[in-house]
């Protein structure tokens, strides 16, 4: 098999972020929200106490990046997990109970898909309280139709396969068939989609935070850090470097894993044919 460069780079990048996230629980140099005005705008210096420097309130940027990784991963993974579970459920119900349930569910999914980009998330943030929970709810609803449609079409595709027919003729119930046969058959594709979805969820989260609609100050989030650095960016451009790179590593990592897995899926399928 050809070496899967995307997958390897993706895994390395995601491992870096996970390492940062784990370290944030044991080895955070400073309290990320502690202000220390005399120490403000210290430039990054690897020999100093503040490796990545300090921001306009004298807060340690490294600590804020580390703390921010918790929020980004929590919102990114949390929202996609929630969206996946609801999406799988709705897709399964729609495919198994034809007619009414099918029409209602799939038309609602079509409607949700018609909202462009960040608009749906912004509309939902208006209704829920801003913060971690609000972001998770808003982004998960964005993810639901993606997974519902995927599951729906995969079940319709596999319905006529021999092992499903066999299970039906044995008298397995719909729920049994779903968990024992459909889920394992769909798993590779779901995992692939899951990984790419985390990449886009992180992008939406940072955009919401940047617009002031996500995680609220004084808590650290990479999008918020970038938005706070805007007014000082002309004089202190280093403020925007660390959060920007952190976002790129995370989004790129999950996207590459999704792509790498997708390549494996495609090559496996063409081998089977």
């Amino acid at each position: 098999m050809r070496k899967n460069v995307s997958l390897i780079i993706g895994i390395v990048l995601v491992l870096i972020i996970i390492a940062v996230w784990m370290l944030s629980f044991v080895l955070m140099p400073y309290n990320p929200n502690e202000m220390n005005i005399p120490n403000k705008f210290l430039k990054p210096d690897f020999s100093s106490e503040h490796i990545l420097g300090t921001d306009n309130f004298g807060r340690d940027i490294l600590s804020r990046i580390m703390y921010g990784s918790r929020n980004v991963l929590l919102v990114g993974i949390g929202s996609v997990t929630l969206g996946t579970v609801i999406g799988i459920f709705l897709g399964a119900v729609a495919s198994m109970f034809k007619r009414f349930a099918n029409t209602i569910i799939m038309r609602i999914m079509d409607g949700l898909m018609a909202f462009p980009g960040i608009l749906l998330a912004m509309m939902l943030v208006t209704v829920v309280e801003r913060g971690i929970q609000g972001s998770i709810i808003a982004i998960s609803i964005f993810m639901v139709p993606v997974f519902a449609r995927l599951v729906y079409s995969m079940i319709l595709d596999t319905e006529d396969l021999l092992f499903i027919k066999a299970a039906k003729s044995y008298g397995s119930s719909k729920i049994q068939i779903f968990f024992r046969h459909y889920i394992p058959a769909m798993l590779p594709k779901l995992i692939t989609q899951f990984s790419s979805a985390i990449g886009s969820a992180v992008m939406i989260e940072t955009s919401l935070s940047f617009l002031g609609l996500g995680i609220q100050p004084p808590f650290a989030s990479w999008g918020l850090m970038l938005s706070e650095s805007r007014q000082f960016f002309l004089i202190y451009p280093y403020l925007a470097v660390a959060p920007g790179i952190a976002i790129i590593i995370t989004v790129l990592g999950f996207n590459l894993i999704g792509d790498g897995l997708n390549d494996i899926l495609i090559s496996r399928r063409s081998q089977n044919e």
Partner: protein
Amino acid sequence: MLSYILHRFKSSIVVLFVVSIITFFVLMIIPGNPAQLILGTDATPEMIEDLHAAMGLDKPLYQQYLGWLLNLLKLNMGKSYVYGESVRTLITKSLPVTISISIFAMAMAVFIAFFFGMISAIKRNSIIDYFSRSIMQLGAAIPSFWIGMVFIVYFGVRLKIFPVSGFVPIEQSFVRFIKSIFLPSVVLAIGEVGTLLRIIRSSMLDSLKQDYMDMAKVKGLSAGKIYIKYALRGALTAPLTIIGMQFAKLAGGTVVVETIFALPGLGRLVLTAVEHRDIVLLQGLVMFITSTVIFITLIVDILVMFLNPRIKSFHQGE
């Protein structure tokens, strides 16, 4: 063929209807009384009640929805309480900004994506292929607000080539208009070019595998003719659909870029509406933007059908 157009038209109407239900009911469960929000904290309970009744908020929800929908069909989207102007006027004023940057951004993205996508496919697994695919991956992962900030500092402040913010209408000065939308468009294009390049590359690869490509080579046609006239033509369907979708989605996806560059477009309006919980404005904007998206998708689908004889005959066969 007509039946296909009719079918697509019908399903667009259904989607639009579902969207209107979602938009209306999601924004109705908002905490707090809209009348209270509009009048502020100084208002007496009587004043709030009067406005509440005047806005029709004391009627049952389904009646409110039907009334809203009817007004929407008459293009009457109500009045924004933040701006004190009708939503329709606000949209008409902001639309040129968003349309300008969307068209400009898509034009750039399409040009770059076709150029590199085709080379990538023709010279598969070459350095150019790897290079353009890596750049594409990176472009999809860089947050637009980050590039925007960097652009403003280097091109706007240091080199002073482009204005840092604001929009100049085309009637005022064409050169300044282009300058004012150039950087925001580039930022948007960077976000869009990756997906497009990927689709162009893969449909080009598919097209290059077809029998008619061998035929064209056997006939001894020039490389340009082979690739542009035959391979590209066969590979156009999927990219066209994606271009349509991307262009449509830009209409709602310009919020971040408009915020960084302080452009008074639709995205700015959406942000203001969300920040101030201006429900009437937000409902109008969401319905306007989503209808545009659905309409453009419909047009592109029909266009693609005309361009691709295979789809045409497939639907005739049905």
